[in-house]
């Protein structure tokens, strides 16, 4: 040991750091600007949602699912409703299925705007984030028309949706989808996606190979960014997704290596286009009139049994494992979320990158803290 030995610096990134996307903590070991390792420390947002499920009736748990991932609450509603319906054998009216798909895909668009926008914000580009939020505002208006809420939607019910779509929704929704696909995304990509600085920041950073992505159980856009074409909407179809024609965008190493941060970002941008396509088809096929909710008693019981239902949420596989003992409350609800899976790989990815790259990696994995902790 020389007299002037150096030691690694231990930095606390979070729990309140601007780019940890919620209350999330990373313990960084750095050698100056170079990272040695980043260890995630999760649990700051643990609210015991799974335990709450055991204490409330089946239907009363629905508002809590909003809080699992507040950026995509409708998708969380949908997963829970599907699980309970399959376990109890409840059928859903045709029109409700379409409304669910429209809502879920709109939420996916809104969520990807935040996901991509927040990552750009972390890279220092404030303006694209604000532009993405401007479009999300239209999405909020649409969802408000549909269910009256702007953030925690609580739209899906067991056996349908809470209410039919209002007059004027269809036209506005079509206008929004057209605006996104034909105007906004072009402008957005010109502004930031093809920006040389952004490409230099994201390409070849945080590369996840397809094997690694599967080993670390990554799901959703993070898995597809590594080139694995696996989308539950297509490969394990639920609801009425098999009636729609849409592609599954996968990473292609657009500007760097396959599976780098740019691929994950680009998969999200392309998924917005695919969601637009699904919404357009759903609006076209949707029956004009009909029931939107199967009548169920206020307190109903679900036959004893267990089921695992997985759906494709914006942040990857959202799975509900539900055990019923035949009572009026669930016996056990286990929720599997995409962000939790994504957290596992951060320690591996963070070795030997720079502090600024870690921010890009966290942003490109699109983790949301409440979804990790539940």
């Amino acid at each position: 040991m020389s007299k002037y030995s150096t030691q690694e610096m231990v930095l606390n990134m979070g729990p309140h750091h601007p780019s940890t996307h919620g209350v999330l903590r990373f313990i960084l070991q750095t050698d100056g600007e170079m990272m040695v390792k980043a260890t995630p420390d999760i649990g700051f947002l643990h609210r015991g949602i799974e335990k709450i499920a055991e204490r409330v009736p089946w239907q009363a748990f629905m508002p809590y699912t909003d809080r699992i991932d507040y950026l995509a609450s409708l998708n969380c509603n949908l997963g829970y409703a599907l699980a309970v319906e399959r376990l109890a054998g409840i059928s859903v009216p045709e029109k409700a299925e379409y409304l669910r798909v429209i809502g879920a895909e709109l939420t996916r668009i809104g969520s990807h705007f935040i996901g991509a926008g927040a990552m750009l914000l972390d890279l220092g580009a404030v303006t694209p984030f604000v532009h993405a939020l401007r479009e999300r505002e239209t999405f909020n208006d649409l969802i408000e028309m549909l269910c009256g809420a702007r953030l925690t939607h609580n739209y899906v019910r067991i056996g349908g949706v809470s209410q039919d779509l209002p007059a004027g929704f269809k036209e506005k929704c079509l206008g929004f989808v057209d605006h996104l696909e034909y105007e906004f995304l072009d402008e957005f990509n010109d502004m930031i996606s093809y920006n040389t600085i952004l490409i230099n920041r994201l390409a070849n950073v945080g590369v996840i190979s397809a094997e690694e992505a599967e080993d670390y159980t990554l799901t959703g856009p993070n898995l597809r960014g590594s080139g694995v074409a696996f989308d539950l909407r297509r490969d394990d179809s639920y609801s009425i997704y098999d009636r729609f024609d849409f592609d599954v965008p996968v990473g292609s190493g657009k500007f760097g290596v396959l599976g780098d941060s740019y691929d994950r970002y680009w998969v999200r941008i392309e998924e917005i286009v695919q969601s637009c396509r699904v919404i357009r088809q759903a609006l076209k096929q949707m029956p004009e009139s009909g029931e939107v909710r199967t009548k169920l008693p206020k307190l109903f019981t679900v036959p004893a049994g267990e089921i695992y239902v997985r759906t494709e949420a914006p942040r990857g596989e959202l799975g509900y494992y539900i055990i019923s003992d035949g009572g009026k409350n669930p016996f056990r609800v286990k929720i599997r979320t995409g962000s939790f899976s994504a957290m596992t790989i951060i320690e591996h990815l963070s070795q030997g990158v720079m502090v600024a790259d870690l921010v890009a990696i966290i942003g490109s994995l699109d983790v949301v803290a409440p979804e990790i902790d539940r």
Partner: protein
Amino acid sequence: MYSAANQIYIFLHDKLAGHGVPESAIIIASYAIPCAIVLGIISGIAGMLTYLERKISADIQNRVGPNRVGPFGLLQFPVDGIKLLLKEDIIPDAVDKKLFKLAPYLVFTSTVLASMVIPFGGSFIVADLNIGLIFIIVVSSLLVVGFLMSGWASNNKWALLGGIRSAAQIISYEIPTALSLLTIILITGTFSMQEIVMAQGPWPWQWFIFHNPFTFITFFIFFISSLAEMNRTPFDFPEAESELVSGYNVEYSGMRFALFFAAEFSSIFITASLATAVFLGGGNIGMHPYESGLGWQLLMVGVFFAKAVPLCLVTIWVRWTLPRLRIDQMMSMCWKYFIPISFVCLVMTAVWMLALGGDGMLWRMAQR
């Protein structure tokens, strides 16, 4: 041939020398008065730039921006200043108190010192030093001492990282800045800011930016390196709010924090002024800056600001458009591209001067 300071000296000397006021007091006063005026003007401009920054960023982002305090929100910046002035001055326990208190003053001083030799048009220059340009390069390097000091003294790892980043960044980008300014020195043969302005003309083809193709390149190298020197996006590593939280100034609050920001915004204006004076003809309207009447001199000031303010706006515009580079990319950009290119420009300008006898390119065409 009198600058404003000399004129004040003559005025004070006439009035006071007969009444037993010592000569040294008159000399100090004749420099202190314009210094105070320039300090006031620079602070006011820095305040206006904070307002402009918020308003322009609001326009870029489809927002409204400040619009509540005064007409169009124009009084926002004095109100912000008063608020920061009245805030409790928090000095954390574990900081190195002397350095912690000294750092913001050092940063602000080094920024404002550069404004002392900037010719704002006509005789409005505090001191027309014969080493003016070198003086600017030297005092603006003092900035890094202040940043490093605040980063170290804060006893905060994020602040320390910010301070070290700014040291690496400012020292690196000092070189292309100085080299690109030296290109102009080759043409003028003088460091005096007023003489550099006087060597140019009122028309664009008489400006040094269009003197030859290499000065055209050095103008952009100078401008981009200056962005890096004043820590603006895409080079805002020392404060990178999403990586280092707020960097070197994370522990500061109240007026000390405001001083850092006053320094940042005055350096935007000073850099724009420097680019205007050195590359864009300054306030030159084809008349002698000292011997023409006051009306013409004020017109020169108007011309100067008409060139400098758009450059400030470009700086703001760039910040709200581009994402941030990574620190290694920024360093390689400086050492691999900017320094060699600016050095080549320096040499090629010398060759140009030899080959064409010192004439500008467009200047020659205009003669024909």
